[in-house]
């Protein structure tokens, strides 16, 4: 598989009479795009607003954010399978991307229909929360969109996500026929056989664990070729992920994060230099019996062996019992001689508690991206680990909080941050001993 990724940097976004990219400026015909979005009768609201880095702006609720990409050569479409898109295998040919922006899905639509799981993520474009988010450095094109509440949650999810993808497609389409200012070729060429072989194992939370629904409809969660339910592990070429084969958010990790995946890119760029990147195994997590969990791990280790892996980087996107699949994958790999690294956030260490849910002796090589219980650099300086007031809110001005979500909180006001994580290793925050 050979993929050329052409990058069109965007240093400014303006609303204007046309939709086009020229010399780093993305002009958007807002009315024309929204007219097209509004053709879906399921939608009750659709608006586009811009959020720029450094602004005192808060975006709430953020369900997902997607980088506009388009396949200009080669089979399939970017972000395959999700919300009814074609499922052809991607990863070949040429794909264009608009860099420095994302299309943000801002909507009150619930992630899924089982209850108990609510939208919880917001972004600040500046301030202590903005400082820790890679996405606050982007110009964020926010689609504030709502669907008819009389529809099923699945249907509402489908409607708003299709709208977001439509905007992405139209924006990315502006680059078709243009020569990309930057191009990178992604190909796992044969390399020196002495280089150590590494497999990348991202573990993905699955919707069916929480909603009990194994339908193929779109829940607001991470999907592989559009499927977000529990399935056996997926063997993927990294190019497929660059073309968006894993997409959809889970908590703070959005489609943008996954497509710009630093672990994947780091391995790819060092392929032939000091590693041999042999492939990706995506593990769906949150199976609900011990046998099912363990089965996934053993099969993943076997698959890694079949790929020739000598080492593995295991990452995960969640918090909770799915950690068992993650840590048991580390264990299963180690037991067959594959050296495994785990990239994870840590739990609250108060009282000397272990900071991993199930601390196994095989987890002896861990990269930490966060630790609970001590706030984080900027917010900790504020009163009670609370983020400061902002001047502008994109999305809903209020949110429901409290144990039974009865209290109304002003979004612009001081607000505790969402649960932080850095699933794919963008940043330098870490748990450290002192």
């Amino acid at each position: 598989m050979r993929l050329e990724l052409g990058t069109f940097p965007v240093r400014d976004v303006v609303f204007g009479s046309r939709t086009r990219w020229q010399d780093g400026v993305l002009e958007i015909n807002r009315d024309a795009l929204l007219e097209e979005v509004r053709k879906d009768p399921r939608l009750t609201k659709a608006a586009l607003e811009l959020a720029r880095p450094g602004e005192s702006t808060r975006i709430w609720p953020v369900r997902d954010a997607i980088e506009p990409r388009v396949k200009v050569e080669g089979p399939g479409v970017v972000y395959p399978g999700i919300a009814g898109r074609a499922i052809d295998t991607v990863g070949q040919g040429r794909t264009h991307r608009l860099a420095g922006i994302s299309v943000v899905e801002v909507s009150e639509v619930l992630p899924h229909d089982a209850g108990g799981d609510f939208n919880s993520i917001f972004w600040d474009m500046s301030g202590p929360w903005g400082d820790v988010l890679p996405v606050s450095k982007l110009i964020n094109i926010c689609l504030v969109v709502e669907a008819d509440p009389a529809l099923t949650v699945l249907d509402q999810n489908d409607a708003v996500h299709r709208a977001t993808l439509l905007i992405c497609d139209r924006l990315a389409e502006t680059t078709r026929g243009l020569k990309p200012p930057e191009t990178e070729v992604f190909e796992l060429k044969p390399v020196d056989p002495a280089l150590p072989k590494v497999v990348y194992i991202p573990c993905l939370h699955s919707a069916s664990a929480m909603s009990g629904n194994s339908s193929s409809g779109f829940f607001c969660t991470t999907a592989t070729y559009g499927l977000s339910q529990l399935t056996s592990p997926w063997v993927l070429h990294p190019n497929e992920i660059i073309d968006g084969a894993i997409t959809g958010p889970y908590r703070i990790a959005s489609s943008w994060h996954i497509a710009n995946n630093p672990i994947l890119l780091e391995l790819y760029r060092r392929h032939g230099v000091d590693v041999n990147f042999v492939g990706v195994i995506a593990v769906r997590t949150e199976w609900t019996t011990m046998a099912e969990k363990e089965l996934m791990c053993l099969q993943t280790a076997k698959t890694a062996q079949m790929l020739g892996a000598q080492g593995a980087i295991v990452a995960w996107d969640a918090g909770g019992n799915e950690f068992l699949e993650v840590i048991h994958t580390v264990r299963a790999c180690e037991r067959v001689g594959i050296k495994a690294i785990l990239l994870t956030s840590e739990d609250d260490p108060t009282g000397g508690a272990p900071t991993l849910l199930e601390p196994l002796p095989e987890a002896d090589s861990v990269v930490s991206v966060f630790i609970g219980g001590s706030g984080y650099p900027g917010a900790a300086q504020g009163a009670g680990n609370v983020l400061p007031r902002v001047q502008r809110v994109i999305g809903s001005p209020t949110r429901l909080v409290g144990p039974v979500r009865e209290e109304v909180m002003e979004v612009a006001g001081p607000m505790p941050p969402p649960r932080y994580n850095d699933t794919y290793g963008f940043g330098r925050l870490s748990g450290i001993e002192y």
Partner: protein
Amino acid sequence: MSPLRVVHFVNQYFGGVGGEEQANIPLEVRDGAVGPGRLLQEILGDQGAVVSTVVCGDNYFNERRDAALASLGQALKTAKPSVVVAGPAFDAGRYGLACAEVCKAAQEMGIPAVTAMHPENPGILTHGSEIIAVPTGNSPVEMRSVLQTVARLALTLGQGKELGPAAAEGYLPRGRKLGMRDDPAAKRAVDMVIAKMKGLSFQTEVPIKLPDRVTPAPRLTSLKRASIALITTGGLVRKGNPDKQSSGNPTRYYRHAVSELESLRGSDWEAYHGGYFNYYVNSNPNYILPLSFMRVLEREGAVGSMHNWIWAMPGVGTPVAKSKRFGEDIARELKAEGVDGAILVAT
């Protein structure tokens, strides 16, 4: 740069006064370095000066703590050190405790302090999260190498600089907190996997910390006369959640009276828990709190009785320290209420 002023704390033995029989000597201050302090001075060279040594009997410090600390405070006010060094205490328990207290007292006065002792010294077990302590073995045989690390840390602290992470600097970790590393995590992960595959040395960012073991309670010898209580972390609430219990990381647990109930019914109870699909429990709450089954076993005579109260909370997202407190509180209540055994269902 003039040498940093150092005050050194030792016990009666290292202070050259005597052994156990002198453990009651009160705190006294000597000029300059005494005993191992002389080796410390040698290692510090011209970067540090042990201006005085505080000597105190192990028993005096531990039994007359207030008096000892008062005298210590006076000594430090007089000597005005940039840093305090206590010990090394190795595995001497009373000495280790005294060293730890000396460090804490100095820190409270705004003077950084460093000590050294065995990781299982009571000084560490009691105060480890609050002091900088270099780990040692049992024997003063390693005095020189320990003092070398102590001296390095003392100079860093005395110069007002921040210490690096515990593992890198050679002191026992006090705890973990959020910090910044030099490289992004993705790069660190790839570097680490390469090092591991090649058999090169590397440092994990999360040292393995295994959970505490708990001594098992002895078995129940007369189940047929025993009172058994049911507990769940599956987020059981009365239907409609009138208590307004949260769906995770609760501030408290709730107990419910069940003496009249033969079974938990979906019309009266439900699950409110953000970590699993609540649907099945909503139709049959006995799935997470086996009340209906216990009634059968009671009638059968397989068990003495089911306790009249049940305990419930949503376990998801709850920090370990809080969970521990909940457990201890519930255990106390169970014991007070004459319960012999408990069954806890987790989701």
